[in-house]
């Protein structure tokens, strides 16, 4: 293996064999018998990729896609059923926080134990200890049993140890989800520094963190690699996969809501919203908002009966469902008085989208008829579209200010008249 390659995953597959009788499983493990008596479950189908030294790889995918299985195989805690993994360098993994921690023992004792597992001898641990304590910031709690720790303290200590074992390859699984913003930022700074010399494999549901941190990404879907390549591309494709017909091509990337199941909606049904799409300035579907800019929200609806005084409206909500902003066509299209039965129209709202704070957003749309005060909802969809925004994590509030300037004005000197 070339010394340029840190991790090579070669046609790795993982088949879990489910035996009705444990004894059969034992015979299978020891002598390879009883294959016919198991019910196989393929968690990973043959897949392969390489991670170059110094590269940062993000691993994304939905729950059950095989991310954790793959990580465990790379770490060596799981044995692949086929294929092989070669790892070039010392691996430290944070698969689940504080795995090696004994709750009865103090933080300090656990640090010694944990670091010893990673191959540090006593002298090395003693040298690293002050730095570990400084990173973990748990103060006097270091000499109390770990069972008295808050989950945040637990994470901080576990991460602090991992950060100091001088690994060549770091593998981090969802580790940062537990900590508070302050600690997450600290870990991110550490990981960014670590990237300069080491190889990092990072698993997260947080696509923003992956884009922020990783050069490349691998998207796993039901045990197969759905896509791999530059992190941003893969993440966008992954986000796009959450929309029903995103696979049909770039020209048709909106949500086809006509045949929606499960989504919350109501209305008389005299008019139906058939399609909603959010397009960026170049006319491509927008799934990831990285900067403020011109967007157009297109809502297509079909009337099943004559609709007089139609109104089409939308609203943008944050993750918690708070309405951020919205508008309807009543004032904007004063001359629009009718949709004939069977006709289909598309209303486009073009506006300047502010650069929203990082997170998930959804867009609700509706078609109604009447006036602002008195109207009938024909079709209302709570969450017709989703998109994600990524902004500077330091951003406070809901959106970033634009054209922000800061000037220093001379307000006169503070001379006291005699």
């Amino acid at each position, binding site marked *: 293996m070339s010394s340029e390659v840190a991790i090579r995953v070669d046609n790795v597959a993982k088949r*879990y*064999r489910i035996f009705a009788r*444990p*004894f059969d*499983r*034992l015979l*299978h*493990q*020891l002598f390879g018998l009883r294959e016919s008596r198991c019910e196989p479950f393929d968690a990973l189908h043959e897949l392969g990729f390489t991670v170059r030294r110094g590269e940062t790889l993000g691993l994304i995918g939905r729950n059950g896609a095989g991310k954790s299985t793959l990580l*465990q195989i790379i*770490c*060596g*805690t*799981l*044995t692949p059923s086929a294929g092989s993994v070669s790892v070039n360098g010392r*691996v430290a*993994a944070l*698969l*689940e926080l504080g*795995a*090696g921690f*004994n709750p*009865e*023992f103090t933080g300090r*004792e656990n640090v*010694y*134990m944990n670091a*010893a*597992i990673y*191959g540090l*001898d*006593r002298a090395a641990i003693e040298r690293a200890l002050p730095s570990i304590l400084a990173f973990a910031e748990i103060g006097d709690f270091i000499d109390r049993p770990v069972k008295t720790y808050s989950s945040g303290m637990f994470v901080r200590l576990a991460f602090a140890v991992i950060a100091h074992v001088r690994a060549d390859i770091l593998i981090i699984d969802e580790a940062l989800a537990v900590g508070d913003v302050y600690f997450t930022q600290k870990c991110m700074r550490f990981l960014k520094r670590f990237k300069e010399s080491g190889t990092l494999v990072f698993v997260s549901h947080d696509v923003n963190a992956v884009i922020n941190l990783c050069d490349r990404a691998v998207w796993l879907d039901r045990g197969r690699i759905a896509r791999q390549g530059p992190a941003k591309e893969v993440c966008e494709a992954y986000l796009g996969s959450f929309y029903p017909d995103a696979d049909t091509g770039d020209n048709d990337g909106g949500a086809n809501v006509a045949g929606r199941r499960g989504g919350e909606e109501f209305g008389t049904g005299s008019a139906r919203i058939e399609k909603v799409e959010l397009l960026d300035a170049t006319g491509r579907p927008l799934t990831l908002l990285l900067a403020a800019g011109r967007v157009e929200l297109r809502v297509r609806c079909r009337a099943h009966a004559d609709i007089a005084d139609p109104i089409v409206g939308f609203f943008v909500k944050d993750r918690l469902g708070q309405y951020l902003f919205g508008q309807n066509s009543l004032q904007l299209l004063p001359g629009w008085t009718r949709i004939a039965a069977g006709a289909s129209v598309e209303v486009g709202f073009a506006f300047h989208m502010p650069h929203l704070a990082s997170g998930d957003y959804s867009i609700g749309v509706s078609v109604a008829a009447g006036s602002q005060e008195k109207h009938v909802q024909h079709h209302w969809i709570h969450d017709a579209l989703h998109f994600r925004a990524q902004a500077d994590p330091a951003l406070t509030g809901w959106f970033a200010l634009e054209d922000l300037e800061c000037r220093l004005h001379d307000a006169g000197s503070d001379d006291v008249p005699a």
Partner: protein
Amino acid sequence: MLKQYLYLVYQMSRREIVGRYRGSMMGLLWSFASPLVMLAVYTFVFSVVFRVRWQTGGGDNASFALNLFAGVIAHGFFAECFNRSPALIAENAGYVKKVVFPLWMIPATVVVAAMFHMLVSLLVLLVCSALYLQQLHLAVLALPLLLAPYALLVLGVSWIFAALGVYLRDLAQVLPVVTTVMLFMAPVFYPVEALPEAYRGWMYLNPLTYVIGEMRALLLNGAMPQWAMLAKFTVAALLTAFAGWKVFRKAQPGFADVL
């Protein structure tokens, strides 16, 4: 690498030993106190209540109690490791699934910790022997030659049952019964000479019989080891340890799938 392993075994065993008394007021003193209390109870029950006498050697109460105690110590070491082995890996599932850890070390840790407790008990036994029987034999120095292969034997057995226990959970229920059978089918409460000749050979199928007999000989009778037998025992212990290692390594890749 070896140095790191040894350091890790040391850390783990220390944790195992200290952990048992963690939070108790007397701490490590308990490891002295409990064998002392056991010794007192044995003496009372068997020599005062039952009025049994050890058939060979000195017939007084102290001698009986110490002979009994030697047997209980040797059996206790085995019982401790053997009973815990099938559940060990499941108890430490975190080491299997969450970190890359030399799993063979987990049973080894238990053996080292049990060995520590056995040594403490033996120390109590020797002190009592010196106080009450006014005897302390030079043959005691040969004790490590017996204990080392004994520990290897127990380690091998622990590896085997730790590996099998992951797959066969029933073992955790079965082994304590086996341990109790071994207690009575070994000359713990009686000298092997108390058995009719015809049964003695069978008794030696239990490896504890040899260990207990030899331990009494070294500690209480001052006889030097029977070298030929010790050599055979050592070879058997090495073979058991090797077999245990093989079984454990073979079964290990499947642990994470089962737990």
